[in-house]
């Protein structure tokens, strides 16, 4: 008997739109590739810092910023491929315990920029379990709109560090460069 795997129903840009509807003065870091285009298309804001290189460095960049600005909330939006290259950085975050820090992975289980090859998450590697294992206060995989609503509240207000692996459909959204 095999375990039933939920079907992915969430689309990435509506997910980013939903999360950023509540945005106020938060500081954003985006990981290279689609998360940068997603955030630029939804909320191209002066408090965004977009990476288009340095793969594996989004969470670490967010951590340095969160440590420098403990009074501000710092959100990192990145993809599963970028996150997998920087898994160790989750342990580094957990050691620092920044209470103002949230990581959101838009996980389509693919390397979207290079031909949609499968990432490790397509084979069952569970990023939220990794985050929980290293010591994030909250770490969950998000499959549904209800789960996303609850996560959105926590992203802005829960005691960090918090981590959400949002399962999103594979889609071919237009590339939107930041202004």
């Amino acid at each position, binding site marked *: 008997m095999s375990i039933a795997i939920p079907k992915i129903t969430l689309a990435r840009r509506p997910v980013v739109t939903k999360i950023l509807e509540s945005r106020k003065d938060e500081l954003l870091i985006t990981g290279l590739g689609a998360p940068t285009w997603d955030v630029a298309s939804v909320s191209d804001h002066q408090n965004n810092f977009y990476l288009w*290189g*340095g793969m594996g460095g989004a969470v670490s960049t967010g951590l340095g*910023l*969160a440590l420098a600005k403990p009074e501000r909330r710092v959100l990192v939006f990145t993809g599963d491929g970028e996150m997998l290259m920087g898994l160790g950085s989750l342990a580094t975050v957990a050691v*620092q315990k920044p209470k103002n820090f949230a990581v959101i992975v838009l996980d389509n289980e693919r390397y979207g920029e290079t031909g949609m090859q499968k990432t490790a998450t397509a084979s069952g590697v569970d990023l939220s379990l990794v985050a929980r294992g290293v010591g994030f206060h909250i770490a969950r995989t998000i499959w549904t709109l209800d789960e996303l609503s609850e996560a959105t509240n926590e992203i802005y207000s829960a005691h960090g560090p918090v981590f959400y692996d949002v399962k999103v459909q594979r889609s071919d959204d237009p590339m939107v460069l930041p202004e």
Partner: protein
Amino acid sequence: MVESVSWSDKVFSVLCEAEVKQVAYVPDAGHQRLIKLCIDYNEIKHVPLTSEQEGIALLGGAWLGGERGALLMQSSGVGNVINMLSVPNECRFPLLMIVTMRGEWAEFNPWQIPMGQAVETTLKAMGVIVLRAAEECLISETVSSASKLAFEGGRMVAVLISQRALGQKDWNK
């Protein structure tokens, strides 16, 4: 590493005077004393890393938040940071790295030699200014100079502390 106490204390003072607020590191025996000084000082956030490349990204984020930082590592760690240097290079973030060298002066571990010999070439290929401190008495003033180049000159700078200045590693300690 008793022989490293003196330069470590001086370099710590240089970092404090430069208002460095975040010190990231992957430990090296040569950095032992300096790391301890940073850990014991509340005004500096000390960030142990799982890989040196995290430190490059971390210090970029720190700079975005208005804080200066420094990355302490061994020469072998330089190999782990090369692509991540694209970020400070492209963004003109200041970057101060203090590298304790292996794989050169009287090295006994052959596995340390390839990266040790490639450190200067690879850093320069990525646009990093490389300053060498070949003797212990030159270390703190070299870090001070590197700090100005980094934070006032807006450049990526690495100080390579020679194995000759550190003394040969003694495995009995």
